């Protein structure tokens, strides 16, 4: 049984969290032709923008309703409308994803109503642009909640409900008759709702695996198209990849939904309610057993056995587990992360024989925390983390853990968001057979690089006993 200790301090020291609207913005960035719009003061956007740019090393479209003092006192609907119209005029996005902030939520206006009014009054001007609202005050939740809320809002507001989905199947049938050569409807579609903690590489790899079963994955959000570090050949004011609006509308035409991470349960449930597509939730896709379950599921959906390539990946992971376990056994690990990532990494390390001596989570609301293989979880910040990680062999958290790592003299494995002082964080694999294999190698290499060389003094048992006495 895990003991979950709530935060009791008044001063947070070295925050672990990135705020909720950032999570929502990241999710919106996984939709094609999107611009996230923060409803708050210009600083809210500026901070988030700088953070995202530092992490992804990309231009990131992110805008603000630029609430000033007057609008803060009198209310923000005019600013909201002006921002939406300006974005439409300048960039003609397919989606404007509105993320509210602490500033506007403290006023607690009826944003949904305001947006409905704007859509109605500006119907013609805004044609071709979806406007989606996520209520994401900074004073609640963190990345995970923000991401999940945005995905839920996208499904709620864009995906067609059951009847429409059936109609679209009919459309597919008509197409099949009129274009018999193409046969587009042949491949079964699978909806995949990845959590925020999956990297670009993870999503690409997931897609390949699903496709290798002859299935067509519809991934929402899909940052692998928009934040994968490519060089587009012209200036783009919006995201230039990601899930298309059409695919989101047609989510009801998938045969199965797969959520990755406990925080994706709500959007998956909503999709089921809306379209009848059943869902399966994977709390983690890292580790042999989890991936086995995933492969079995794909096999079952497709009616096809796992291809030889996947067998080979599995065998490589088995070998990595054999080669790697020496380095993990008995190691003390300290992790600070969002709940689902905490679970993902804690189970990974414990699965190789290591021990979690300190676990810090951003928020206490997630049910996954109960399953984290640690004695206790502190809801808190990197100050708490540093206080409890002194005996660890390895620290696992994002780049802000670098100060703690320096002070404690303990190596740091950088995972999550933000990672601003290392390149390629989005191209790091962390899921499925290959991602688990790579993680084993990465961590084992850190352990090996920091091994203490033996000396007569350190091994002299009598001397040690004397010193202790």
């Amino acid at each position, binding site marked *: 049984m895990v003991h979950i200790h709530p935060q009791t301090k008044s001063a947070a020291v070295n925050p672990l969290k990135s705020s909720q609207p950032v999570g929502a913005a990241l999710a919106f960035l996984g939709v094609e032709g999107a611009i996230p719009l923060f409803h708050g003061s210009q600083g809210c956007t500026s901070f988030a923008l700088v953070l995202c740019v530092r992490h992804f090393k990309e231009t990131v479209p992110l805008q603000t309703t630029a609430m*000033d003092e007057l609008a803060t006192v009198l209310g923000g609907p005019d600013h909201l409308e002006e921002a939406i119209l300006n974005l439409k005029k300048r960039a003609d996005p397919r989606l404007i994803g509105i993320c509210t902030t602490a500033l506007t939520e403290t006023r607690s206006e009826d944003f949904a109503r305001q947006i409905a009014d704007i859509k109605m009054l500006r119907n013609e001007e805004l044609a071709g642009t979806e406007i989606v609202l996520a209520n994401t005050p900074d004073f609640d939740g963190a990345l995970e909640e923000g991401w999940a809320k945005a995905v839920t809002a996208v499904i709620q507001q864009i995906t067609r409900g059951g009847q429409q989905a059936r109609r679209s199947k009919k459309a597919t049938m008509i197409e099949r008759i009129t274009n018999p050569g193409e046969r587009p409807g042949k491949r079964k579609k699978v909806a995949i709702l990845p959590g925020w903690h999956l990297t670009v590489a993870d999503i690409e790899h997931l897609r390949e695996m699903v496709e290798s079963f002859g299935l067509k994955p519809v991934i929402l959000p899909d940052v692998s198209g928009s934040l994968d570090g490519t*060089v587009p050949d012209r200036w783009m004011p919006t995201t230039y990849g990601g899930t298309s609006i059409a695919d989101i509308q047609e989510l009801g035409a998938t045969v199965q939904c797969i959520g990755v991470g406990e925080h994706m349960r709500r959007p998956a449930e909503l999709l089921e309610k809306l379209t009848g597509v059943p869902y399966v939730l994977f709390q983690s896709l890292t580790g042999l057993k989890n991936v086995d379950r995933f492969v079995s599921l794909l096999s079952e959906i497709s009616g096809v056995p796992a291809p030889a390539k996947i067998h080979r990946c599995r065998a490589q992971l088995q070998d990595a587990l054999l080669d790697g376990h020496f380095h993990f056994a008995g190691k003390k690990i300290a992790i600070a992360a969002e709940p689902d990532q905490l679970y993902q990494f804690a189970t990974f390390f414990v699965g190789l024989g290591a021990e979690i001596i300190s676990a810090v989570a951003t928020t206490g609301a997630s049910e996954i925390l109960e399953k984290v293989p640690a004695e206790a979880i502190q809801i808190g910040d990197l100050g708490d983390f540093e206080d409890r990680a002194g005996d660890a062999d390895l620290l696992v958290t994002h780049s802000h853990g670098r100060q703690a790592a320096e002070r404690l003299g303990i190596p740091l494995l950088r995972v999550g968001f933000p990672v601003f002082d290392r390149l390629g964080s989005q191209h790091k694999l962390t899921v499925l057979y290959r991602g688990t294999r790579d993680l084993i190698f990465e961590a084992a290499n850190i352990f090996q690089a920091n091994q203490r060389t033996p000396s007569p003094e350190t091994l002299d048992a009598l001397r040690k006993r004397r010193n202790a006495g």
Partner: protein
Amino acid sequence: MPSLDVKIQDAFDEPACERNRSKDPKARKKGCSKPVIPGATAGGCAFDGAKVVLQPITDVAHLVHAPLGCEGNSWDNRGAASSGPMLWRTSFTTDLTELDVVMGHSERKLFKAVREIKEAYAPAAVFVYATCVTAMIGDDIEAVCKRAAEKFTLPVVPVNAPGFVGSKNLGNKLAGEALLDHVIGTVEPADASPYDINILGEFNLSGEFWLVRPLLDRLGIRVRACIPGDARYRDIASSHRARAAMLVCSTALINLARKMEERWQIPFFEGSFYGITATSEALRRIAELLVRNGADAEILDRTDTLIAEEEAIAWKKLEAYRPRLEGKRVLINSGGVKSWSLVHALMEIGMEIVGTSVKKSTVEDKERIKQVLKDEHHMFESIAPRELYAMLSEHEADIMLSGGRTQFTALKAKSPWLDINQERHHPYAGYDGMVELVRQIDLAIHNPVWSEVRELAPWEFNPAAEEQLPSTHTQIETASVAPLKTRRHDAGDFAEC
């Protein structure tokens, strides 16, 4: 204590600001921040500006009274360097939850937070930053700070610059006001001398002030306080006893310089350590002001000798780069550095300036740039990312010098780029700094990757592909001739100091 509104009005009425003086009284009252346009705005808020200015003070605990976003999304992101205490890099925030906001617990939480920090970190002072939410719910941070200061016998300084009151620049100025109201003049130094100066608006990015300090040391000039770069609380508290001041980033702290002159008769001048001539001029003006205020006149000769020596060395080092950089075209896109001085040094070694931003330049600087550039169209206030992308992908410049905000616009256009703003990793101040800057420009332009990344894949090189290319170009050109007015609006914010 005047209200925040009065403070803001006061910050806008800046007699030492040339641009402000040239306005009529009505325009002056409106202030200098441009209106923000929803959906087309870039740049930070007033809180951001205030924190940027104060955070490099190294032995102070900076406590942000806010929900998580304000501090959690922005901490540890600037490259100021400290020669001692590292407390400034530790992030403190009250991380207000919904419950705190709704139940009105926030003032109590702030008070307790100050106590926790005092007990665990023993800082020289605590700076408490107000933000949008805490201002909106009516937290009286000045009262809480006053009480905490009495109770914990520790300076607790309220910084009242919530984000929504305006731009980053306004926040810079409000930070200066906080220092004037609560810090400067609270400690009397025991060792005041006629050779004491203050440097205002120097951030010691990448430790670059340490390139300049030895020059001052050699002249026997002591930096009483460098605000804020590598500053200690006590330095600033006793900075009112300096005899002269140099204002480095004028748009950020001009109010501070002027008010210190009014209150404590510390004369100041605006100068820069970027560029060779600028560095020499700065040293000369410092010496002159000190002499006018009681220092021995012999320092003037010593200064001239030092300048002559250092300039000769620097120009000789720079000359080595001439063969490699002559004729290369530079686009300077940053308000943070005094572009005149840079323009001068780069042109001196034969580089061509195809454009420079003058957003933060003085009228005088603009005049000088105009004269050397011949074509005044090469001066701009700011430039839209789309337009910038077009310029760079057409290879109208061989390199862009700018800040991180436009980094990826340049890189996506496959254009060499060098960071000259706050996140940069190299020190550029003083004589050696200028040589370092030119060296970095050389390294950037001549990196072998450029020829590789611009090359099409072999299978892409066919007549069909060539035909398609011009159409993409037309698209870019059409985009770049958008009406000037809209271009201004979505221009990025390059206002970094």
